[in-house]
Every structure is written in C-alpha cells, then in structure tokens.
C-alpha cells in the first residue's frame, strides 16, 4: 500500500495545496481567518473541523479564489494562484475540483450534462453549447458514471435524483476536471448518516485512485476521524489542532467547539 502510494506520488510530484499565512477579513479589523498555513500533498485526505461560522467555508473558498483572500498566498501544485485574474485564474481553477454542500448541480440539465460541466474549462463555449464534446470526454464521463453506479441515470434530469445520487454527480463533475487537488465543502451535511458514509468513502477512494490530495470541510468529527489521515481543527479563525485523528483528544475538541456537555 505504502509502496504503491509512493510510486504514484512520484509520478505526480507536483500535486499539492500549500496555504501560506492566509488571512481574510470581510470587515476591517475583524479577521475571519487569521494567518493560516498548512500544506496538503500527494495522496492524503485532510479534514478541516470546527464550529459553524468559524471560517471553514471561507478558507476552502480562498483556495480557489471564489472568495479573494485579504493577505497570504495559496499555491496549487507549486503555482501561486493568489494574484491571478481573468483567463489565468480560469486556467488555474481547472486544476481545482470542488464538491459542494448542496451539490450545486444544474437541476434542469441531465446527469450527463452536469458531469460534462467539469469539462467546460477545457471546451470552447460554442462547442459546449452544441454539446459537441470530444469523444474522449464523453467516454470518460460514461465510465465514471458507471464506476459510481449512476450509468442508468445518465440521460435523466439531475432533479430526479436523490440527495446521495446528486452528490455523486457533483463528485463526478469535479473528477472530470482531472484536478490536481479536490476541495469538498461540507459534502455530507445535506445527507442522511448512511449516505454520508458512502459519500465519504467515494471521495476518499477517488482521491486515492486518481492520486488527488483531498481537503474536506466537515463538522462531523466522527466522520472526519474515520475517513481522513489528518485533521485540522479550526476555531475563531485560527488552527487549534493539526495532526492525525488518533491524537485528537476531547481537550482539543473542547478548545475547537467550546463547552463540553456535548462530548458525553
């Protein structure tokens, strides 16, 4: 397992997210994120845990500049994307797959069209409009849908699917980008516990299979511990804990979430 991982990561030595002294303040003097630094590389999956409103979503959106950071730098596979704009930013974003809490699919389009949305960064608009995707993209989309068990739904509208199925489509869309890194913003929060586990399994296994570092925002500590190799605890805009889930103690959790009655 480890040997395989090493050989894979040496084939893609460049795949990483590196966050350096990142700060974000929406209102001057009230930072939501305060001087955050960490690196995620290779085949690892990292969970960011923390209470709501602590800046988890802001942090993950600063990685692909959906929200521009106030200061600090973000490197994707070594490229500093913090100051990119326009076309250059689009080119950089193609390397960053993202999975959303509420799936963010186009409800009225088919599953296939939604999956192929992951290729929009690579395909000219007029081709996308006429649905003239390269055959390779279509083949990839079909086999991806097959592997996540949604092949029979390919031509159905996305709004006819259940929550778990929709999130699978959302994940497939992100994988279609052939991303260097994968971000997931509360991917299980809109799902029931069983489906949540399935979605986490899928994310982690796809991250392994395609050798994509995975950064997940998640408020469910148990899921985070179960599926990821590293947990970053965020509170009040700062990193409280950064290490393996096995060393995450109740004391840490008290610091991250505050209070203690909920731990019993």
């Amino acid at each position, binding site marked *: 397992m480890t040997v395989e991982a090493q050989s894979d990561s040496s084939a893609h030595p460049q795949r990483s997210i590196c966050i350096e002294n990142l700060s974000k303040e929406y209102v001057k003097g009230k930072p939501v994120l305060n001087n955050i630094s960490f690196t995620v590389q290779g085949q690892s999956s990292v969970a960011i845990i923390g209470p709501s409103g602590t800046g988890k979503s802001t942090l993950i959106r600063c990685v692909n500049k959906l929200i521009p950071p106030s200061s600090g730098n973000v490197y994707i596979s070594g490229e500093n994307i913090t100051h990119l704009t326009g076309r250059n930013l689009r080119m950089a974003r193609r390397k960053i797959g*993202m999975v959303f809490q509420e799936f963010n699919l186009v409800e009225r389009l088919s599953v296939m069209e939604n999956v192929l949305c992951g290729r*929009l960064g690579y395909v000219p608009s007029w081709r996308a409009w006429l649905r003239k995707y390269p055959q390779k993209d279509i083949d990839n989309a079909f086999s991806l849908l097959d592997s996540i068990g949604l092949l029979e739904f390919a031509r159905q509208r996305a709004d006819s699917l259940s929550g778990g199925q929709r999130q699978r489509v*959302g994940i497939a869309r992100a994988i279609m980008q052939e991303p260097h890194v994968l971000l997931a913003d509360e991917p299980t929060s809109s799902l029931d516990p069983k489906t949540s586990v399935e979605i986490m399994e899928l994310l982690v296994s796809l991250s392994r299979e395609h050798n994509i570092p995975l950064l997940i925002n998640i408020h469910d500590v148990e899921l985070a511990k179960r599926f990821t190799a590293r947990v970053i605890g965020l509170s009040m805009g700062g990193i409280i804990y950064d290490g393996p889930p096995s060393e995450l103690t109740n004391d840490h959790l008290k610091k991250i979430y505050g209070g203690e009655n909920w731990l019993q």
Partner: protein
Amino acid sequence: MTADTAKNFGPAFKTNWWARAGWLAAFLYAAYAANYLDVSWIRFLRGLGNGAEFLAEMVPPNFSRWQLLSANLMETVEIAIIASAFGILFSLPVGLLAARNLMPLWITWPFRTFIALCRSFHPVIFAILFVKAVGFGPLAGILTLIFASIGFIGKLFTEAIEEISLKPLEALRASGAPFMSVIIYAVLPQVLNRFIGFSSYQLDANLRNSTMVGIVGAGGIGGTLFAAFQRFDYDFLAAILISIIALVMLSEFISTRIKKVFQ
C-alpha cells in the same frame, strides 16, 4: 385557564393606521374625481341608449369585403410575427445584460434605462413617432412592436434571471468555465421555460397591438377599422371586430400549444 386568571397579552395583531388612512384617502379621491369628471348615473343611462343604437347597426356583420379584410389580417399577422421574432431575439441579450446579479453596475445601468424607455410609452405613441420617422406603413408598426416587446420581455427576463439560484454558477465558476459557458449551462436552463412563456405571451400581445397600430397609419387592419368607424360603416366594423376576436383566440390556442411543447 379561566378568564380571571388569564394574563393580558395585548392585541395579537398590530393595527396598521397608515394602511387604513390610505384606503380612506383612495375612496375619497375616487368620489371627488367622479364628481369632477361628471361621471354620474344619469350620464351612464344616456350612454346606454346610444350604445344600443350603435349595436343595432352592427348586426348583421357584413363580410362582403372579405378580400380586403383577409389581406389586412394577413398584414397584421405579418407585422406581429416579424416584430415578435426580432423583439424576442433582441430582448434575450438586453435582459441578460440588465440582470444585476450577473453584470456590474456600469453595464446594467444603461440597459435597465433602455428597457425603461421601451416601457415608458404606450405602443400608440411609439407608432406615431415611427410613422413620423420612417413614414406610413407596416415598417413603422414592426418597429413599434419590436420596442414594445423588448420593454416587456426584457424586463420580465431580467427579473427571472435575478431570481435564479446562484449555486450552479458558483460550481461552474469554480471549475474554470468561461463566462459564456456559465451563462449557457447555469443561467439559461434555469430561465428558458419562463422565457418561452414570456415570448409566447408577447406574441399574443403583439397580435392584439398590431391590430391597433394601423389606427395611426402604421400598417395592419387598424387603418381599415378606423376608416369603417369614420364612415359609420358599422356592419363592416362588426365583421372586422369578429375577425380580430377570432385571430386573437387562435393565437392564444397556438401559444398554449407552444408552451406545452417546452414544458
């Protein structure tokens, strides 16, 4: 539980004195205006007698000049269809560029102003302006209805776009999709249905309006209608009115069908 132990919580609903005052003011003004304009019951009864005579002269409708009638109707339909086609075509980009959730202020502002201008005049006023500008005939009518269409569809389309969910847009932006692809994939699917609805409604409205622009000389059956009025040719007038009703009902039937196809 009983009355004497119950606490007094005060009234459950707030009295809106402003709304009450507003209603009272509206009622008083209506009474004053009716008095001022000499709208009275006696005047109404006198009008009714007149109307009965007028109606009596309209029967039976006279379809003997059916060739003139059908040629005029054809022109009316042509004006409506050409104006709708161009009006719908132009209002798509105009509506998109006026949507405040997609475009920066310096783009939306001029386009919102343009739409407001298109809406500010009744089609008859536009028709008068265009008859003066490009001369009598169907061209003036077509231009009139194009502007009317942009004003109507453009505004509703802009509002529809401003109500869409921005979540898919966020996802496509995050994937590095170019702006046009985001519009085509994340915006249009959310509003296409309503756009078709607005467009078929506007086609309907254009048919009705194109019967009217002729009154000021902008082509279509309106001119003949007005001439029949002035010559006290009431039986022919009845024939024209009946054919307009038939035309509008037919178009309503067709637009219902069109909407079903795109559901």
